[in-house]
């Protein structure tokens, strides 16, 4: 018996043609709701993917930028961005791997106006650059704070420990000594 693949066949074919050979996973969640995953062979394919999704009247739901630090090829491809779209009760997740060779993802705001906030947040928190973003201002964090803060934020509890123990100052001292 064959499982029936739920979703828009034309869209699945288009996204598959833009993806890597092993980057397509068609499946469902614990409740049987279809969720399909596509890993693009190049970040530049994102525009074609966005255009195809918009043509079908899909809705952008979420963009998640993340570090690939734990992956074996992390040095060559340090970041990725996963885009989740909803169309007719099916979720299409499209992932763009950001590499040293192609260090940016293109903006998808021409097709999805609501990508604006997601892209700006991805830039300021994860440090992924978005090419041709029409409104590249800070969304939440002050402009004086470096990009990619998500990986560098010091939890308040760690700072509080620093205030009542010598650990923080010893760490600063040792890093200073190391620099001389």
């Amino acid at each position, binding site marked *: 018996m064959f499982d029936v693949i739920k979703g828009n066949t034309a869209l699945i074919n288009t996204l598959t043609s833009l993806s890597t050979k092993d980057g397509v996973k068609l499946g469902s*969640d614990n409740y049987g709701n279809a969720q399909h995953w596509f890993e693009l062979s190049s970040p530049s394919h994102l525009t074609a993917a966005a255009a195809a999704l918009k043509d079908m009247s899909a809705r952008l739901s979420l963009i998640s930028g993340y570090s690939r630090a*734990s992956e074996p090829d992390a040095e060559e491809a340090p970041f990725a961005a996963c885009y989740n779209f909803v169309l007719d009760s099916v979720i299409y997740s499209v992932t763009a791997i950001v590499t040293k060779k192609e260090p940016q993802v293109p903006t998808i705001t021409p097709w999805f106006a*609501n990508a604006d906030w997601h892209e700006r947040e991805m830039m300021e928190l994860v440090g992924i650059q978005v090419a041709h973003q029409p409104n590249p201002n800070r969304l939440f964090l002050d402009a004086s704070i470096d990009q990619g803060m*998500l990986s560098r934020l010091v939890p308040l509890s760690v700072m509080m420990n620093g205030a009542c123990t010598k650990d923080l100052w010893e760490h600063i001292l040792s890093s200073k000594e190391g620099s001389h």
Partner: protein
Amino acid sequence: MPAPKHSPATFNIPLGPVHVALEEPVYFDLQVDGEIIRGATLHSGHVHRGMENLAQHRNLIMNQTLTERVCSLCSNSHAFTYAMVVENALGIGVPERAHYLRTLTEEIKRVASHLFNLAIQAHLCGFESLFMHTMELREIFQDVKESLYGNRMNLAFNCIGGTKFDLDDECFGFLDESINKFMPAYKELMDIFETDPLICARIKGVGLLPKEDAVRLGVVGPVARGSGLAIDVRKETPYAAYGKVDFDVVVRDGCDLYARTCVRLHEVIESIRIIRQVMRDIPQGEVRTHMNKIFPAQAIARSEAPRGEVIYYIRTNHTEIPERLKWRVPSYMNWEALGVMLRDAKIADAALITNTIDPCVSCTER
């Protein structure tokens, strides 16, 4: 949302970040022409807590507690959706009774949340007795939460694999009694909100969000449904016990404050329908299964919170700490719609229009 270049705006008015009519800190720069708003620029970031970073320093169990603190009014939706995303990633099956209990809890929270929004709306209209009447009715559901779960806001009911504890017949009996007390008074309240001339004069034809703008901006929840879009995750991709209960998606095509008010008012009735069906049909059995193994995976989970679609994304590895946990709340999608709703509105209506998206700044900024 800057004012268009042809705008005749003559001066700017700052609204917020701390303002008597706004529940949380957010700053609007209103470009106005006389008493008419021509454009609005939103500046946020006042309560950014770096929660997604914190989530990447805590294990999967600890994040259950963290995510419940994203928001207060829809705290359960976060804890619930987080549990679902971990279950989806690690293939954890949830017992049938837990599905029903989770559904029941979501709807109890939805009733309380919608009533809070409606009460604030009455307050912003200057109808203080209606505000107090609505909050008094909401108190019935606050008592339900306190009696059933031990807390009035953060219920701490969900866990990965099901629920932390069971609810017995005594709990269901109390809930049933509370609903019986609530319904007659609520029907009177609905009538006031839908027909009172004072309320109608303030909310009919105000804060317009045309359907095409709602589609373009990807708005969700009652904001989308008030502009004629039948978007509801509970129907679109049923989760928990939503596929087994009968309810209607409330849609209005007025595109104004009145339409969104009617959506929330009637959604309370639908929530009560769901609660009654859950109490009638809930099966006996276990309420949770245990997490056995953590392995590299990625997953998403969605739910329909009181303000609309909540979505969680997770990437796990071989450790108990998630590599990435990201979530997007409904207010995040609905803020941009304020630019459309506020354009050509009166300054006096700015707070009322802002309230119509049921904004949650803490949720949005995390």
